[in-house]
């Protein structure tokens, strides 16, 4: 069944004041949270998740998608005004946004950032609408060997690009896979790492793990150095971006939106690499390339288009294959699970109206983002001045209530705190948490598909090479590893050469 078949029911789901309100609140909360230095879109989505448990699925998921979209844009506001990216995805925005703010053109930088974000967001949403259904149809022919190789490929990319070191990414992903084995064995029902604790039989609660991993380390880091998160905001200045500015940046915005859509659709890459790629492409092709890095408006537009371009596309692998495209969609998968929905190709067949309702809501979210973003830019000073001594303890209390609410058990609070300290140690050692979380989510799927494939073939590994799809994913996995090792070696050689020449 196509979009047109589901359209009436999907419109009926979205066209309710509660759905629209949930989406609007999500965008507003996400924009404000993304704009607060020290908070991030990931943290905002994680904290909003428990509030969606009591909502119907469409409203709950729309709220989270709104937080996601708002959070990604909101991160650009402190990036431009106080040189502190609200989210890692906004790091490229700092390069030209802050120099513009120093020149008194912060208002101009922020308005072009908003327009670029909304345009790229629409492109990304359209990519989702056009391609997710097609991919889901293709994925219906996937069996366990195909899913096993797909998940392996996704984990390889996530481990490779999440941090600066492939090996640290590998260690992080392996730890996530290990944690995912806690509980009853999927085939024999025997205990694995249960240690006599009945609460561990069902495995660790995913929401406790993710909140522990992404919110608690930030609280601990704040407690270590409370003064670190303070910053002085530049004034907006009198200037605003004009339509002529938008027209001048239009090609870079469209390119950034398309690049973001392609990169977002590949599981694991995420918004930050997309923003930098869009920025470097804009610099390479722009007649004003010499001005990049010194406050070029096209640089801000390209970076923002690149990072917002992934926001819809990351949902393509999530909805079509059941594989989260980045950490935030990994959290959003939690909202699906809580409501008894399993993202993947079957979701289009069993809950088509819900999927298409989300698509319609996403288009609406671009309009809300434009409205909320325009207001947030003006009131950023108030957002930035939220006292951090009040904010971070509040986040902790929210985490405790939210995690308890999932299963009504204090045990989950202990899991959250334990994971928080694991996350803090990982942060201190430079180990990226994203591969950990995504491997934790995909671990049972990876193992289950592997064992099903082995059961189908009588334990012959040949089944893992049975079709062109498995060959494609094996080739993509090997290519990714080779490319990552090659780029690592090249960087090492370059660093050695520069050290030698300096000596």
């Amino acid at each position, binding site marked *: 069944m196509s979009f047109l078949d589901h359209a009436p029911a999907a419109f009926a789901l979205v066209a309710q004041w509660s759905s629209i309100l949930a989406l609007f609140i999500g965008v507003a909360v996400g924009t404000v949270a993304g704009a607060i230095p020290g908070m991030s879109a990931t943290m905002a989505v994680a904290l909003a998740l*428990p*509030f969606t*448990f*009591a909502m119907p699925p469409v409203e709950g998921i729309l709220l989270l998608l709104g937080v996601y979209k708002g959070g990604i844009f909101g991160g650009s506001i402190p990036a431009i005004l106080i040189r502190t990216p609200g989210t890692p995805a906004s790091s490229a925005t700092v390069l030209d946004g802050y120099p513009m703010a120093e020149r008194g053109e912060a208002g101009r930088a922020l308005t072009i950032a908003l327009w670029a974000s909304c345009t790229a967001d629409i492109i990304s949403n359209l990519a989702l609408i056009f391609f997710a259904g097609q991919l889901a149809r293709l994925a219906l022919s996937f069996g366990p060997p195909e899913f096993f190789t797909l998940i392996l490929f996704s984990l390889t990319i996530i481990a490779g690009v999440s941090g*600066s*070191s492939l*090996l*640290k990414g*590998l*260690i992080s992903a*392996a*730890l996530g*896979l*290990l944690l995912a*084995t806690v509980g009853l*064995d999927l*085939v*024999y029902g*025997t*205990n*694995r*790492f*249960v240690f006599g604790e009945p609460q561990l039989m069902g495995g660790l609660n995913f929401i406790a793990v993710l909140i522990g991993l992404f919110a608690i380390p930030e609280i601990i880091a*704040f*407690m*270590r*150095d*409370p*003064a670190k998160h*303070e910053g002085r905001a530049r004034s907006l200045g009198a200037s605003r971006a004009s339509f002529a500015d938008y027209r001048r940046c239009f090609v870079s915005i469209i390119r950034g939106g398309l690049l973001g859509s392609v990169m977002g659709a590949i599981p694991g890459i995420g918004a930050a690499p997309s923003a930098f790629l869009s920025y470097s492409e804009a610099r390479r092709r722009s007649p004003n390339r010499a001005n990049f890095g010194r406050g070029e408006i096209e640089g801000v537009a390209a970076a923002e288009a690149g990072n917002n371009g992934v926001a819809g596309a990351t949902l393509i692998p999530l909805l079509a294959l059941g594989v989260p495209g980045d950490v935030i969609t990994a959290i959003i998968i939690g909202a699906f699970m809580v409501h008894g929905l399993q993202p993947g190709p079957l979701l289009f067949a069993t809950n088509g109206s819900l999927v298409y309702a989300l698509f319609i809501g996403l288009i609406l979210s671009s309009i809300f983002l434009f409205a909320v973003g325009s207001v947030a830019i003006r009131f950023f000073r108030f957002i930035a001045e939220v*006292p*951090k*001594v*009040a904010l*971070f*303890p*509040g986040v*902790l*209390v*929210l985490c*405790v*209530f939210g995690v*308890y609410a999932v299963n*009504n058990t*204090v045990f989950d*609070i202990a899991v959250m705190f334990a994971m*928080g300290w694991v996350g*803090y140690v990982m942060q201190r*050692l*430079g180990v990226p948490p994203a591969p950990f979380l995504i491997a934790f989510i995909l671990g049972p799927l990876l*193992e289950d598909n592997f*064992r099903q494939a*082995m*059961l189908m073939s009588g*334990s012959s590994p040949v089944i893992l090479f049975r079709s062109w799809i498995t060959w494609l994913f094996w080739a993509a996995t090997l290519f990714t590893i080779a490319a990552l090792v090659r780029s690592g070696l090249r*960087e*090492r050689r370059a*660093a*050695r050469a520069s*050290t030698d020449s300096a000596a």
Partner: protein
Amino acid sequence: MKANSAIVLGAGTVVFSAFLLAWLIPNAVVSPRNVSNIVLSPLFWPQIVAVILGIGGAGLLAVHLTGRARATSEDMEEAPPLPPSLSGELRVLVSAALMFGYFWLVSAIGIVFASMLAYAAFAVLAVRAVSSRGEVIAVLITAFLLPLLLYAFFGHVAGVSLPQAPFFRLP
């Protein structure tokens, strides 16, 4: 400093991998005796993951031991390590103690009162360094109101049964 932390991580991971393979997996993973094929055994997957961990740790160790004297681009790209701060590390330790206390208090005096105390304690921990008198008052008001608001939402809107204090039951 950076290379040292990578070496510690690499060595720690190798040791952990060996510990998993030699003791933890054989003792903490139950496998039926009639499993005909090792690939389908409940032990197989944790063992594979332990081997991957070992490879990752050994690789990290090898990379940083062989290139220890020279700076790599990775070292230059990443944020500089946190400056040593005795008061900072002390605050981290106090945070750990407060989190443990918070967890214990949730069962002992209920989630609302435990949250009020935890909020105030964490705010006091951070307040010493940077805050004004106005912020302190704002913190105290929030410490009282936020847990009550969350209780109202989760308890009455979401229908979650939250742990209550034995001495005072909230409506």
